[in-house]
């Protein structure tokens, strides 16, 4: 009897400890609710309605397709301890390895990598505040060893919408405040350069564009030139970044955009405005507002296209796999004009 009591008490203690390890926080005090209701796991792609996609289709005028993602290959700059490794399986090419009289051979790949590498999308489950994630979800209750059981990429809707490129290099050049980095071969904003709301608005005015609900904003900083020099400039690329600050992020939220992408690894300015805050723009966009972040976007070609044609808008075409329970994934993006 006594042993049973002790075991029972131990079990209660164990359960209590487990629940303490996860979901200790009242998420209603840390994260705002989704405007799409308490069950929403989709976030800002809710804004991409058929009407939004149809309106975006008007951007396709010449049929010109502009590449907006970088090659996915071993050696590109990676954040922290991330890695990539590809292994080719080509056994059927060995003598006698072909199949049938038609001598069919095949090859395939093993791709070892974290999901947030190369040009990639941050999903709703990527960034939280303590254990609280988008739409006040206490994620400690919804994770297992393999994936998340809420907020996975499978819940996202289409990204078929209008893209708007904002050329910060041109804005900073026009304002006479461009401080470049010596490692950039083309004009770039230096690491740590803060992009403000006024800068974004100046970039939109440059092409006479007004943001509308459901847009995806792509910011060209020139920092991506360092990515293109991989692996030579990987350390410089990862050491800092030009990017938006908190005020600019809040302004983009007020514009009801769906995603914000840049040619940096982080979208926001690094070092942060407040050295004691860790990636605060990620919290504002993802955690609080369900707005996606797209990192390592190749922006130079679409920025050049905008400059050549004086048109900064395009049809944003991006493939996001329905990867169940994933926090993000590498993506392919094309700007169609």
């Amino acid at each position: 009897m006594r042993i049973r009591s002790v075991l029972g008490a131990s079990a209660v203690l164990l359960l209590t400890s487990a629940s303490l390890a996860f979901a200790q926080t009242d998420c209603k005090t840390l994260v705002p609710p989704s405007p799409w209701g308490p069950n929403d796991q989709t976030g800002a792609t809710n804004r991409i309605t058929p009407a939004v996609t149809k309106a975006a289709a008007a951007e396709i005028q010449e049929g010109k397709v502009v590449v907006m993602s970088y090659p996915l290959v071993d050696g590109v700059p990676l954040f922290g301890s991330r890695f990539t490794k590809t292994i080719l399986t080509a056994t059927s090419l060995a003598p006698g390895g072909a199949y049938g009289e038609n001598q069919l051979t095949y090859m395939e790949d093993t791709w070892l990598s974290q999901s947030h590498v190369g040009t990639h999308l941050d999903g709703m489950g990527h960034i939280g505040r303590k254990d609280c994630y988008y739409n006040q979800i206490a994620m400690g209750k919804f994770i297992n060893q393999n994936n998340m059981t809420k907020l996975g990429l499978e819940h996202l809707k289409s990204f078929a919408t209008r893209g708007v490129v904002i050329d910060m290099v041109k804005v900073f050049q026009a304002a006479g405040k461009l401080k470049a980095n010596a490692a950039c071969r083309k004009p770039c904003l230096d690491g740590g350069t803060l992009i403000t709301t006024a800068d974004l608005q100046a970039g939109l005015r440059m092409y006479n564009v007004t943001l509308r609900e459901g847009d995806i904003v792509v910011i060209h900083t020139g920092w991506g030139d360092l990515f293109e020099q991989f692996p030579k400039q990987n350390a410089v690329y990862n050491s800092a970044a030009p990017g938006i600050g908190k005020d600019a992020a809040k302004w983009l939220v007020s514009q009801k955009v769906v995603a914000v992408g840049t040619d940096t690894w982080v979208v926001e300015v690094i070092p942060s405005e407040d050295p004691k805050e860790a990636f605060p723009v990620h919290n504002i966009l993802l955690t609080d507002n369900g707005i996606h972040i797209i990192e390592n976007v190749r922006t130079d070609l679409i920025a050049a296209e905008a400059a050549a044609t004086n048109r900064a808008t395009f049809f944003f075409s991006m493939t996001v796999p329905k990867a169940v329970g994933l926090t993000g994934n590498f993506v392919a993006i094309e700007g169609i004009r």
Partner: protein
Amino acid sequence: MTQNTAPALREGRRRFCLTLLGAPLAGASLLPARPAIGQERRYTIAFANLTEEPGVTLEGTGFTGGEIRSGFALAARKLPVELVFYDNRRDGKRAQANAEDAIARKVDLYVLYCQDPDANAAIAARLKAAGIPILAVNHPAPGAPLYTVDNLAAGRIAGEALGQFAARSWRGQPTVAVIVGPVEARADRVPERVQGVVEGLRATLSGVRPATLDTQGNAARVGALLGKYLAAHTGAKVLVAATDDATALAAKSALEQAGRASDAAIASHGVDRSIHGGINDKKEIDPNNRGSIVIGSVAFYMDRYGYDVLPLALRMLRGEPVPPRTATRHLFITAANVFVEYPPYDMN
């Protein structure tokens, strides 16, 4: 007591008088462009750094002048401030020449970081005559508000942390304490830090009288000095207060070589990058390295001076009172709070 400098007020009076007396004739070009309503005026602030010589560390810590300059540049990003940087090269004459250049440029405020008291006095007099307010960093200048490290307070924090660790972990066991580093380095005011450690230990662990081991600024001497000390105190637990982070790491190595790591705890001063570091840096204080015998280090935040000094400067420029002395808010950084105080952002 506060020191009130009111250039903004003076500027306001000047504008008012000019408007009354001659604006219709003189025209707007006589005055600097007015900011739009709701848009604050931008100020030009000069920062004359102690030295920016690569590798030279300041104030008996592991911070370089380059890190201090970078902190000013980062802090200025959100402020209505244009910065002009000077390098005083630890030279009073150079410092005076820099101040003359700033006067010629008509900067709005001068932040002076110079160790030479005579030069500081001369610079303060020249800037006062030119009507340029001055703010001194770490070394006073006559009539200027001072922003400074508080070595005594920092030392107390380290001493108390060590004493509390011993009381918690080694209760009833024989314990000795030793302060290691350039303990006599008066130019860097390290003796104040040492005094603070003594006071902090006394407050938390009565009966322990710390010895001092003077490395004379050469961390390579820590091994020999501490090795000898450890050999003479074989049966005791050892509290080590290192005056800086490089000394702390050398002390850790010496304790390991002597086979005494399990008998020791180290508290340090500075929290330079060897202590906090980037995400993949080998850093001594890390939530994943809770077993380190370096239990913590007192933050000096010299890489963040700009975040404290520039707001003070702006208060002066707006005519608001500022205290005659503002000290760094030192804090003991451990594995429990290092990612809060220094979130790693360098992702290499």
